[in-house]
């Protein structure tokens, strides 16, 4: 019986009391028309039973009151436990976030370290890199020259003019002309464009721009009688060049 909870015990006691009271009333009602002495003992025992049940109920009520106090304590404990639970959950969440952030940072740092190591392993001198950069960009193929504007006949690829002025072009055309190759670097001097002979063999591709620059300067400058005849010929070639350059379907140009 002790393992039963208090509520069940109380219910049972109340039911018992009800039954005993009913028995008593029945006895009383039966006894009323007849004499009362016969079942007096039964009535007394029933009444004693009732009293006993009542006292039991009272003791169990006392127990229930104590349990109510304990229940209050339990509720407050539960509240505290819940508070701690939520705090622990918050801490766990923060820890997880910190771990994620740290993992990302460490991964990125590792990658950077690898890149640094790689750079250190394959280090090259800056002079070499600058030299190569200079070579690559010397022909103005990477970016246009400083004062280049629309209408400038200069191109990053060898133009028709350049090709004709080169070795191969010189072999086929103008066999009777013997001109001196322009070696000067100044663009203001009025030098005649050269037809390539044997002297041009030593000139590398890096100087291919020089003649065209000279030609551009001679073309744009005014009042030179020496170069009129040459200019006429080169004007036509220039027109060709300009036509070709404006024409998008030139075969020698790079894809743009």
């Amino acid at each position, binding site marked *: 019986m002790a393992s039963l909870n208090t*509520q069940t015990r*109380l219910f049972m006691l109340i039911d018992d*009391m009800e039954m005993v009271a009913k028995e008593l009333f029945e006895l009383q009602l039966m006894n009323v028309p007849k004499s009362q002495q016969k079942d007096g003992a039964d009535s007394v025992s029933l009444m004693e039973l009732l009293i006993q049940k009542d006292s039991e109920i009272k003791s169990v009520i006392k127990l229930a009151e104590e*349990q109510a106090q304990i229940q209050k304590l339990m509720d407050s404990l539960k509240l505290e436990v819940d508070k701690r639970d939520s705090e622990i959950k918050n801490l766990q969440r923060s820890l997880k976030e910190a771990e994620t952030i740290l993992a990302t940072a460490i991964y990125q740092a590792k990658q950077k370290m690898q890149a640094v190591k790689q750079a250190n392993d394959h280090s090259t001198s800056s002079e070499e890199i600058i030299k190569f950069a200079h070579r690559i960009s010397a022909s103005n193929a990477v970016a246009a020259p400083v004062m280049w504007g629309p209408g400038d006949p200069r191109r990053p690829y060898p133009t028709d003019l350049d090709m004709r002025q080169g070795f191969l072009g010189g072999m086929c055309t103008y066999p009777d002309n013997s001109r001196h190759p322009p070696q000067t670097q100044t663009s203001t001097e009025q030098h005649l464009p050269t037809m390539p002979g044997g002297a041009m063999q030593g000139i590398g591709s890096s100087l291919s721009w020089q003649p065209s620059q000279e030609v551009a300067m001679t073309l744009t400058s005014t009042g030179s009688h020496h170069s009129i005849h040459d200019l006429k010929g080169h004007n036509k070639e220039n027109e060709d060049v300009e036509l070709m350059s404006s024409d998008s379907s030139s075969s020698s140009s790079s894809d743009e």
Partner: protein
Amino acid sequence: MASSSPAENELNLLPAVYEVVRSIEKDSSPDLNQVNQKLNELKAKFQKARECVEKLPGTQYSKEEQLRRVRILHNQMELKTQLLQKFKEKGSFDTDSTE
């Protein structure tokens, strides 16, 4: 029994029983109407007593069970307090052990 709690009042069923018995034993011929009335009152009182018992807090367990649960909760609370204390104290990480 210095102060009577509401539960005690509700579950004080003997006086009602006594009233019924008295009404039955009154005079030689009992007034059945009164008897019925008292019986109904007794029934109502029993019903109220049952409702009161239902509402009593903490009675869904026996005393031993309840004490056991309180002990468990207390242990939980202590454990969690210690855990939180440990977390809050050990805020810094060991930098030597990281790779």
